């Protein structure tokens, strides 16, 4: 019963405040558009029309959700354990490269499902490998992962560039890219739609993480570590091991997001391919207040913005940067909404204590 009460308190208010925030952002953005001489209503009409209401738009929106969901679910594991993985982008690239190479080696020789599984596994391993270095540096030398994972992003950019220009390059093509997986060997569509099954993979990842934290011992322990690391030591929880695991798992998921994009979208890895999901994943996980299931609607919304925004920019003759502006505004308005929500719940309910999502940082911030 208490669990249910908590859940409803958890999921309803944030949804309301998110809606408020989105509305506020659109209003402010609209004023901004009008102030610079554009037709705001027309622009928004196109945005919704193209990102949501048109068939292609909706399909693309759903497709784009997949990597966001996969990467965010991994990031959630790290953040709940108080581990700062700023290296999602690097892990994504290495994972994508690994999976592309694996896929290119296997394609045609093994049944497609086997190849996909192998490729996702390779993506996972690639991401883990890239997270391993910061993890080791942390365990061996106590180096803070904020810096090391950030630095590893730049290293990844260079290492993958080198590999894809050299050893991993498709010799038949001039451009630095791996051998392309033919269309018919890519991820299949979800029956009755044009969306590939990566979306399902993403949803499964989110659900797994939700189960991890809701009903498993390791999830419980990761939460304890995230909230009070010293208490975890005191309780005999293997803190160092679990934190490493959390970092590696989040790296692995980022790598799988790479595999998803290789097998769902691009069919290959190409040089300098860095979609920069790390930022978006961070925003998502925070918007969802570290709550796994809430990530799903936010991923959908971000995806919609990306897809519809492109079209809006062109058709309404608005600089494409408007979408970035709108996203930023949304996050800022969301921040205000979170505040209003807290004020409101303090007045009505008994939630006198601090917002859990903020305390996590305290814990995350301290290193041993």
């Amino acid at each position, binding site marked *: 019963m*208490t669990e249910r009460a908590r859940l409803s308190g958890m999921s309803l208010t944030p949804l309301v405040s998110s809606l408020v925030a989105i509305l506020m952002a659109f209003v402010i953005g609209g004023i901004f558009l009008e102030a610079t001489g554009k037709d705001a209503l027309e622009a928004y009409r196109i945005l919704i029309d193209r990102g949501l209401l048109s068939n292609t738009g909706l399909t693309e929106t759903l497709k784009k959700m997949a990597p966001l969901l996969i990467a965010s679910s991994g990031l959630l594991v790290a953040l709940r354990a108080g581990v700062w993985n700023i290296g999602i982008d690097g892990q994504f690239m290495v994972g994508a490269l690994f999976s592309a190479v694996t896929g290119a080696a296997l394609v045609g020789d093994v049944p497609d499902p086997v190849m996909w599984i192998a490729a996702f596994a390779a993506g996972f391993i690639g991401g883990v490998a890239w997270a391993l270095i910061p993890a080791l540096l942390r365990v061996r030398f106590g180096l803070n992962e904020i810096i090391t994972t950030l630095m590893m992003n730049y290293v990844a950019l260079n290492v993958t560039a080198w590999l894809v220009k050299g050893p991993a390059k498709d010799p038949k093509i001039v451009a630095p890219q791996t051998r392309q997986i033919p269309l018919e060997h890519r991820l299949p569509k979800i029956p009755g739609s044009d969306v590939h099954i990566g979306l399902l993979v993403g949803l499964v990842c989110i659900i797994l993480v939700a189960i991890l934290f809701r*009903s*498993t011992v*390791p999830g*419980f322990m990761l939460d304890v570590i995230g*909230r009070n690391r010293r208490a975890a030591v*005191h309780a*005999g929880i293997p803190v160092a091991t679990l934190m490493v695991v959390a970092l590696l798992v989040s790296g692995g998921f980022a790598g799988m997001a790479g595999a998803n994009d290789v097998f769902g979208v691009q069919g290959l890895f190409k040089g300098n391919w860095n979609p920069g999901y790390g930022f978006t994943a961070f925003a998502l996980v925070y918007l969802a207040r570290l709550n796994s299931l809430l990530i799903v609607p936010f991923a959908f919304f971000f995806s919609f913005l990306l897809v519809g925004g492109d079209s809006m920019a062109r058709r309404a003759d608005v600089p494409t940067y408007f979408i970035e502006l709108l996203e930023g505004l949304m996050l800022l308005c969301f921040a205000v909404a979170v505040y209003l929500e807290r004020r409101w719940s303090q007045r009505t309910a008994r939630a006198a204590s601090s917002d859990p999502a903020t305390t996590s940082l305290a814990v995350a911030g301290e290193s041993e």
Partner: protein
Amino acid sequence: MANDALTPRPPLPDGRGGEPRVEMLGISKRFGPVLANDNVDLTLWPGEIHAVLGENGAGKTTLMNVLSGMYQPDDGQILLDGQPAVIKTPIDALEQGIGTVYQHFTLVPNLSVIENVVLGTKTGFRLDLGNAERQLQTMLADFALNTTPQTEVRHLSIGQRQRIEIIKVLFRGTRVLLLDEPTSVLTPVEVEGLFAILRRLREQGVAVVIITHKLDEALDLSDRITVLRQGRKVGVLDPETLAASDRETSRLRIVELMFGGRPSSEGSDVASGSAAPGETLLTLSAISADGDRGAPAVKNLSLDLHRGEVFGIAGVDGNGQKELGEVIAGQRRSTSGSLAIDGRTLTNQGVSAISRAGIGYVTDDRLGEGSVPGQSVAENAVLKTIGLAPFSRKFWLNRKAIERHAEALIEQFDVRTPSASTQLTLLSGGNIQKLLLARELAMKPKVLVCNKPTYGLDIRTAQFVLKTLREQANDGNAVLLISSELDELLDVSDRLGVMYNGELVAIFERGEFDVETIGQLMLTGRRATGVAA
């Protein structure tokens, strides 16, 4: 100095007849569901020491925090020297001469002593520490603090920090001094030193408020006593009353105010068991360990704990007791020596192995490492046992079992909480302590190590805790009780060791306990038998 305690209460200064310095009128403060202060009045006169008593969670700290500007009351008024006072922030309070030593430490660990002391004082933009340093030097000497102004506070022991807290407040010159449980972490000698200072301040016309759980301290020291109960003021013993009645009567009166209507469990049913010590449960041989700063904290220490005994460890804070407890619990690596439980060597095997082998450890740092503030009471209750049945099977949690277990503990140990799913942060310190003890005992440890388990507890709860420890020993287990309360150690221990500078300098059997000798050992590490020459 030590005689100070024995001097009769000085006549009350004349100023008392004039204006009260502080009048708190009808103060109410609510935290969510908890009404922490309910229409409380409190009057402070210049030149008096005013004790505020009450069991855990009675609202003492809250009342003081209202006066110090930390909390804004929901209702009520504060008069300073008869004038309505605006105290919106701690700065307002400090500027009007109200200084506070908080229950929870308010020193910044990685600033130096001097930086902590001058923090917040109003001087120029440039930090000119020269003057302050000279003044501080004197005060450090006054407080028998053997540290330099440049030492970072994190390097000091808890007892030392407490004194710095007081220095910090006095440094600014206060007219009203609030002390929230200042003696809980001090040794008897330090307490005397503190009291001497407080009396001096009283002479100078300062209004002193002291919150304490030690009745005798309150009776020794104070001119007036206010008792709170469940957020309400339930009585005041004014100087006339105190002077008119003897100590025992006052005691009874206060206990009645605090717990009236409920059976008082005072008495010595915690006294040690008489069963002969049984087989050895824990063996420490020549254990050494380093402290947080890397300096040796425990040196070559050997000790056997037997079935059925409570082994007390006395010592001035910072002599390695905490580190010893942590080594036994597996939380701190030993640098040499060995540790065996029930004959099994488990040196440096880590917390979980050691806890599985039957060692429980109640830390003195309840919020910092004992619990996870953001989680519920129930989740905290199974923090250490989450991996075991029935709380989980394989990887899977059993939330029902966790909740049921927590409810049982709450019931059994009388933890005051709205429900098992309440966030731990909403509990008062004493109730958190009960929960931590309950958590350890539920694991049925063969050896229970407790570090200051009664710190900050009201008398009843403290008695309850000690009784529980006693029973634990009587059931054939061993208890290692680390405490700075000599009285409770004397009461409950079968054997008593004194730690000094990382070493166990003496062990007394029950019956040989001699307070003076123990005190000497705590302070100097040697027996002052006069023979040594």
